[in-house]
């Protein structure tokens, strides 16, 4: 019986949220196929408690390959390990996140095990009758939705857009097996070396993993005015993004850019201020759950895709919004955003020693 697999992701020994999002996708598919769901974890220092959490959130089995030499993602080595596991266990489906890791290692593995791979899927289903995986993804800047299948090759592989599904609630009654898979020495490829990380840039943001994004464009007029957006983002525990126009003017660093030549995001909420809604910008936000726009122009493209649009001057609307939000959140904003930022500093210290 071939299983459905998800590829969990870790950084610094901590499993990332996206690992749990993948399990809710995988669980639904495994149930439809009446098979089991396994999660593969390649890395170092992921605690037994965290591995158990994969089971509580949907996995039946967890394959953990842990070694200090696997602490950092190196495509060649990870691809060797995953290809080896695929050949040994022959899963029917493998899902990975459409992240810098998933989008790198999955195409590498797909070539080596000779199977198809569909990128950045937003919907997954099982075709009745054949049991084939139906993989639906936005293409051409989100202007079409293509449904793709891999009828003659196994496994069927897909990367899944982060934030496009929610993790299942923890279920402490679920039982499963954590299997420690020993690392085969010959699978380590020593050509590429990770020499460190740079996270010191004050102006760096992790847009794809944010639940709330507050974004500004040319209408913000000046870099300083982004302070308003940072403040609002703080209240929501979110981050600040921008249109290309704002990036090209040097108001924020490239990691903030949303759109065709920036990040594609799918947060629970995106609020835009002073962004027109060009086709290239919209390409990056179309699968967001809720879109709010503030723009003086009633015909702005963003108002047309927004769930809630305010036709007005952002310099009048944002201060009022700030005031009301602070009033609403009784606790000071710093306290409500504590979780995500709290964990950063020590992670940084650890990384700098690499």
């Amino acid at each position, binding site marked *: 019986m071939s299983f459905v697999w998800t590829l969990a992701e870790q950084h610094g020994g901590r499993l*990332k949220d996206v690992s749990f999002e993948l399990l809710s996708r995988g669980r639904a598919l495994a149930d439809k196929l009446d098979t089991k769901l396994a999660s593969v974890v390649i890395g170092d220092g992921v605690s037994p408690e965290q591995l158990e959490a994969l089971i509580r959130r949907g996995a039946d089995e967890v394959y953990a390959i842990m070694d200090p030499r696997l602490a950092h*993602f190196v*495509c*060649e080595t990870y691809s060797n390990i995953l290809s080896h596991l695929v050949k040994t266990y022959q899963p029917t489906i493998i899902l990975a996140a459409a992240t*810098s890791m998933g*989008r*790198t*290692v999955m*195409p*590498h*593995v*797909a*070539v080596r095990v*000779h*199977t*198809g*791979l569909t*990128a950045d899927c937003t919907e997954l289903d099982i075709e009745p009758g054949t049991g084939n995986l139906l993989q639906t993804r*936005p*293409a*051409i*800047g*989100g202007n079409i*939705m*293509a*449904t*793709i*299948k*891999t*009828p*003659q090759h196994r496994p069927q592989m897909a990367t899944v857009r982060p934030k496009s599904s929610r993790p299942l609630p923890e279920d402490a009654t679920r039982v499963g097996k954590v299997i420690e898979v020993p690392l085969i020495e010959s699978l380590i490829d020593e050509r590429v*070396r990770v*020499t460190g*990380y*740079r*996270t010191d*840039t004050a102006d760096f943001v*992790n847009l794809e993993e944010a639940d709330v994004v507050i974004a500004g464009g040319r209408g913000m007029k000046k870099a300083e005015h982004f302070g308003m957006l940072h403040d609002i983002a703080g209240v929501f*525990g979110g981050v600040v993004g921008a249109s290309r126009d704002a990036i090209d003017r040097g108001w924020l660093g*490239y990691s903030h850019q949303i759109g065709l030549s920036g990040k594609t995001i799918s947060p629970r*909420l995106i609020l835009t201020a002073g962004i027109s809604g060009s*086709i290239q910008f919209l390409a990056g936000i*179309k699968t967001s759950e809720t879109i*709010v726009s503030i723009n003086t122009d009633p015909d702005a493209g963003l*108002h*047309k*895709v*927004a*769930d*809630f649009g*305010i*036709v*007005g001057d952002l310099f*009048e609307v944002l201060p*009022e919004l700030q005031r*009301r*939000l602070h009033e609403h*959140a009784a*606790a000071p904003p710093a*306290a409500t955003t504590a979780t995500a930022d709290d964990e950063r500093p020590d992670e940084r210290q650890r990384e700098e020693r690499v």
Partner: protein
Amino acid sequence: MDIIVPIKQVPETSNVKMDPETGTMIRDGVGTVVNPLDLYAIETALRLKEAHGGIVTALTMGPSPAVKALREAIAMGCDEAVFISDRSFGGADSWATSYTIAQAIKQAGRYDLIICGERATDGDTGQVGPGIAAWLDLPLATYVASVTTLPGADAPVGLSVERLVEEGYQILELPLPALLTVVKEIGSPRLPTLRGKKRAKVTEIPLFNAQNLELDPAFIGLKGSPTKVVKVATPKVMRSGTVVRAHDEAEIALAVDRLLAFLDERGLLPRGDRP
């Protein structure tokens, strides 16, 4: 340092308009351009060439008109070009595309580095670069935001690169030959020059096709592609959202009020730890 830059011709999206009735893209009369994200790959290659010498070769696989993309690359400063085109290559997915390109690269000759764009703006997969690396067993770095060369006795022997990842930048060292995919941050692409445009007109571009490429026929084109597109739908992007006017103080207060109520209804409003 000899560098190959695989580029793709894509529909020009900057002129695309949305149909206000259907909310879909109007594609009539849309021209083609070099994939905008590949311009950064070309720029990276040209800078490395300026610093270390060598030859930059642009390469594309596509239908006959795609040769135009190669002429644009030469106009920007690429020295040579390779065109891969055959009816039997049509309909290739990223698996078959990366196979065909890898076979052509093997036959095209010596190289120290291959630089791809992050992804093509039409297919939007970003899978061809890593795929080529897998076929050629080259060390790979994706999402590269900066490159420095590691000097050897007379020529660079490796690269130190910063990859844009979720946590920041991952710094890698890799030996040459290698394959990179680059992001926009790497540096703004130069414009074509007049001299380049003249050269582009006269440069001879060799053609690789099913006759002169060594290929497994089961690995090419639509037939050799493991993935099959079974349905294409044009989603309506329009949402039936609320749009409110906020032109004076009263309207602004009301608009913000309604926005907060709307967010609250969707469970998006943050709450303090008020009991």
